[in-house]
Every structure is written in structure tokens, then in C-alpha cells.
């Protein structure tokens, strides 16, 4: 059966449109993104920037010694005007670049998983799976359309959240440094190369679950079990990529491995969607 890209995009676009109309879904997700990308960083950075050169900051500053040498060397010591950078700004710089970075992985993974979990079982619960199952659309088109529709909200969250976060840290911390320092090259690699395969891998697993379980609630629970370890791995690997080597090499290797696994998982995941799973018939082989 011929694969038609146009139909795949039609499925994706329609799913996204429904998501856009579901305020009860995207408003909490937007709040989640806002909380992790803006509120928490803003609170911490402002507190540290305003408490000044006191003992607490010095203690945090000492913790920077635990960072790998390459990461420590990346922390600026002089401002653009040649003045010495105070410890509070150095702490803020470190937090901005290294501590909050993995959030960029966790939040989109959470959002995309939540969307993906209900995508197929939701069609079945609403009865609209019957329409799709009887339509000329190929199951590969449906699978990839739904994958894209789940991927996009997560990635939009990343880009928007990343943009807002960049603005925040450049204003709060960059003001003290005298220049905008964010995003760093490691961050670009993380967002453009490391994160997408992790999202794709998570979604390939989530869509398999969504095709098998009986209800959206069950899909959400099962998704948590599957994606939580993945989120932890993604968090750990992203942190390592940013902090560990201080170079782009680790990010490139990590991204390549993640892409390979994701592509294999996506290719085999296509077969998990059958018309019967859209119809919700019991025990269909």
C-alpha cells in the first residue's frame, strides 16, 4: 500500500488542532513549562543575585569545585569591562548553564508522553478510531501522523521555554557579566541533536502502549512506568553532555546513539498499530 505523506500530515495537523482546542490539556502543560523554565530559575537566580557576597553564596561557590575542570574553566572570571566577576554571578552562571539544563529534556518528554499516551486509545474511546480504521489512510501514515502530533507539542515547549529561559538568564546573569552568554554551544547541541531522539524514542514506546491498553487512564499510568526511566537516562546523559567533557564530542556521540536506537524503535513501532487497535476489538491478533 502506498505511503502518502500528505495523509500523514493531515492526521498530525488534525490531532494538533484538537489539542489546541483542548484548553483543559494544554493550559496545565503550559503552566508546567512555565514553572520549570521561568519561575524556578527566576526565583533562584534572583535570590542569589540579591543576597550578595555572603556566606551562603560562598558555600555554593565552593560547590563549583566539584564540577569537572573543563566546566570550571568555562565559568567567566572577568566581565566585558574587565572587572572581576563576583562569586554570586559565578554561581548564577553555573546554575544557568549546568543545573537547569536538563529541564529542557524533562519537560518536553513529559508533555509529549502525555499527548502520545492518549492519542490512539483516545481515538478508540471516543469512537473516532472507527472512522480512521475505515478510511483509506495506511496504518503507517496514522502512526507517523500521531507521532508527529505528539512530538511537536514537546518540541514547541522546548523551543519556547528555551527562548524564555535564555532571555531570563541573559537579563539576570548577563547583566552582571556585561554580555549575553546564553545559549552556549553545548546547549544548541542538546536542543537540536540530543533531545529529539530521546523524544522520538519515548514516543515510539508510548504509542505502542497507547495501541494496546484499554483506556486513557491506563495509558497514562503505563506511560509513566515506561518513560520515567527514560527521563532519568535523558536527564543524566544531558547533564553529562553539558558538564562532563565540556566539549561537543560527548553530545554528538550521545545524540548519534540515541538517534540509532530511536530509529530502530520507530521502525518496529509502526507494526504495533493495526486497524483493529483503532477499533478496540478484543483479542485481535
Amino acid at each position, binding site marked *: 500500500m502506498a505511503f502518502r505523506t500528505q495523509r500523514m500530515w493531515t492526521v498530525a495537523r488534525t490531532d494538533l488542532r*484538537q489539542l489546541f482546542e483542548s484548553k483543559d490539556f494544554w493550559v496545565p502543560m503550559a503552566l508546567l513549562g512555565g514553572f520549570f523554565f521561568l519561575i524556578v530559575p527566576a526565583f533562584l537566580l534572583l535570590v542569589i543575585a540579591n543576597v550578595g557576597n555572603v556566606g551562603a553564596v560562598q558555600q555554593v561557590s565552593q560547590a563549583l569545585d566539584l564540577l569537572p575542570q573543563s566546566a570550571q574553566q568555562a565559568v567567566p572570571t572577568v566581565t566585558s569591562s574587565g572587572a572581576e566577576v563576583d562569586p554570586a554571578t559565578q554561581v548564577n552562571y553555573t546554575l544557568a548553564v549546568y543545573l537547569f539544563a536538563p529541564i529542557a529534556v524533562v519537560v518536553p518528554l513529559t508533555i509529549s508522553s502525555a499527548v502520545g499516551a492518549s492519542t490512539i486509545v483516545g481515538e478508540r474511546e471516543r469512537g473516532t478510531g472507527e472512522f480512521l*480504521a*475505515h*478510511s*483509506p489512510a495506511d496504518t503507517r501514515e496514522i502512526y507517523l501522523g500521531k507521532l508527529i502530533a505528539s512530538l511537536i507539542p514537546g518540541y514547541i515547549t522546548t523551543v519556547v521555554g528555551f527562548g524564555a529561559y535564555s532571555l531570563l538568564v541573559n537579563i539576570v546573569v548577563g547583566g552582571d557579566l556585561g554580555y549575553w552568554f546564553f545559549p552556549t554551544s553545548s546547549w544548541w547541541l542538546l536542543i537540536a541533536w540530543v533531545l529529539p531522539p530521546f523524544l522520538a524514542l519515548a514516543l515510539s514506546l508510548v504509542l505502542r502502549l497507547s495501541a494496546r491498553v484499554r483506556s486513557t487512564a491506563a495509558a497514562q499510568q503505563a506511560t509513566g512506568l515506561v518513560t520515567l526511566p527514560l527521563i532519568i537516562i535523558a536527564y543524566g546523559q544531558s547533564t553529562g553532555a553539558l558538564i562532563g567533557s565540556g566539549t561537543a564530542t560527548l553530545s554528538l556521540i550521545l545524540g548519534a546513539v540515541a538517534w540509532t536506537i530511536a530509529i530502530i524503535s520507530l521502525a518496529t513501532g509502526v507494526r504495533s498499530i493495526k*486497524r483493529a487497535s483503532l477499533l478496540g476489538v478484543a483479542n*485481535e491478533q
Partner: protein
Amino acid sequence: MRRCVHPDEPAEGAYFPPVSGNVRADATIAPDATASPRLVAPTEPTDELVVELRHVFKRFGSVPALSELNILVPKGRISVLLGPNGAGKTTAIRVITGALAPDRGHIRTFGMDPHTQGEEVRRRCGIVSAKPALYDRLSGWDNLQYSAELYGLGRNAVSQIRAAAGRFGIVEALDQQVGGYSTGMKTRLALARSVLHDPELLLFDEPTSGLDPESSHAVLQLIREMTDDGRTVVMCTHLLIEAEGLADQIIVLESGTDLMAGTQQELIRRYWPHDLVRLDAEDPAQLDQVAGWEGVVGYARNGLAEVQLDDLARVPDLVGHLAAAGVRLTRVEPHHPTLEELYFAVRAERRASGVDSPL
């Protein structure tokens, strides 16, 4: 001309010989049908067939959904799949489009195997499922647009969408979210979506489910109109009155098996090949004597007496002889069985034969 004679009269020239043996007053009229479980053999339509299901089996786990199912749908006609819940109607629709694959059996839709040529088959089919299967968060227009794109009409199918919506009287509601539609409007939208891509075969799975009588009537009228331009319709229903008023061909299903197929008149004539007369009397027990008379091929009394005659022309003589025997008749009328009577008679017989196994 033959005449009826009283059983007590001399046998010479008699058409109604004396009763031999006991007459069961509650006995049903024996149908002239083939042996159970398939009580009436399906006929082979001579027209071009749009759908052929032969000896189709389908199980869901240990539960049989279709069992030796045969359905032949001629082109340009309305075929109604009639049966109780769980009879296999929806599963039959699903295997016709290839949405489900059978375990075994021969299926052809438009002469193609829907399992291997599903895209082409489904592109030529329009479906209205038992639930309208509409996206509640989208507008009516968006629902039609989605279908238009999936069926290859492209993103600019404005004229087709307007035409389909206009045909079913929902143009004004197209901008509203479907979640706010009434059940009747949803059904109309689902019907509009089913014809949007100008399909040759329309498959309706209980399209009047949940509708009030007026809306049901309107929907059935619309379905009838759809065959005016040569489309073939297969409709599932458990409502006898819908099948009676709409069907060119009725296929009665039960437990995943086709019990009989044909036009309403064919089915009734096949089950009751002789004319029926209903009799009543001041003392109904006196009517039992006709059971063994010549020309009476069946007799049953359950309140009224139902007499199956080999020729309706015997009625005047029958009445005359009953009167001569002192029976005071209060009612004599020919009876034309309805589809409902046929349906329940067939089901009763099937149960009696021990093959009624609920799914």
C-alpha cells in the same frame, strides 16, 4: 373449481378429509424451509455483486463473531443486515472494508480483496458507524475537511463540503464545534461525511441509533435517496420496521451466521409458502377440526386460529363447512405475515433446534 366439504360428509369429492390423530392447538404452522441452522437458503443474486462474503469466520479470542457467514450484496440496492445485538453485523461491515481481517473465508468488495487492496476498497466506501465517530472538539467543517483530505480530495474541497452539508441540512452549523451538536445533527454530519468523496458503496451501522422518530424517518429517507443515483447501501439495524420500509434485500443474522436472505416477500413466501387465513369463533376450540382437512397444510391456534391453505380459494368452502358444523365464526380474514412475525418465527425455530448460542 374445488370446494370444501365438511369432514363428516362422505369422502367422495371431499377436500377436507377427517382429522386423523390429535391436533395441538398451540402448534405453530410448519414452515416450508430448509433444515436448521440455516432455515432459509440464501439466494444467489443475478445482478453484479458489490460485496461477496462466503463462508467467513472470525473469532475474537475464544468468542466467535462470524461463523460461516455468507452475504451477497447486489449493486444499486439497499441491503439490510438485520439481527439482534451481537449478531455480527458490525463485524461484517468491518471485514467488508478490510478494517478487520477474517480468520478464513472468501471476501470480495468491488471484486477486490479488502485485506490486500484495502486502500482502494476503502476509498470507494462511505461509512457511518454506530457511534457517529466525529471529533467533538473540531467544528463540523473541520470534520468534513479531515475526511476530504484523507480520502484524497485535497485541502480545497470547499464545494464538495458545502454540497454534502447542504444535502443533509447542516450548512448553518458547520462553524460550530461538533460537541455542541444534537444527536440528530451529528448523524446528519456523519452522513454528509460518508458521501463527501462520492463513494459507490455506503455502509451504515445502525444510523438511526439514538434518534427520535422524526429524525429517524428523515435519515432513512435520506438513505433511500442515496440509492437514486446508483449507489449501493448496506445498512445494519436491529429495528424490524426500518428493514421493512427500506430494504431491497434483507439478510437476517444471528450468532454471526446468516439465517436467510432475500426480499421481504421472498423471505415470507419461502417460510410460509402457502396463504394464511385467520379465524376466530365464539368457541375457538371448535376450529381445531379444520387442522386435518384437505388443503390445510398448517394449523395453529393461540388465541386466534391461523390456517395455512394450499389455495386461498378454499376459504368460502371452509367457512361454509365450519358454519354447517355449527361453528359460529366471528372472524375470517386473510393474513399477510410481517417481517417481524417472520423474524421471531425463525428465531424461535432456531432456538428450538438448539443452535441459539448467544455471543
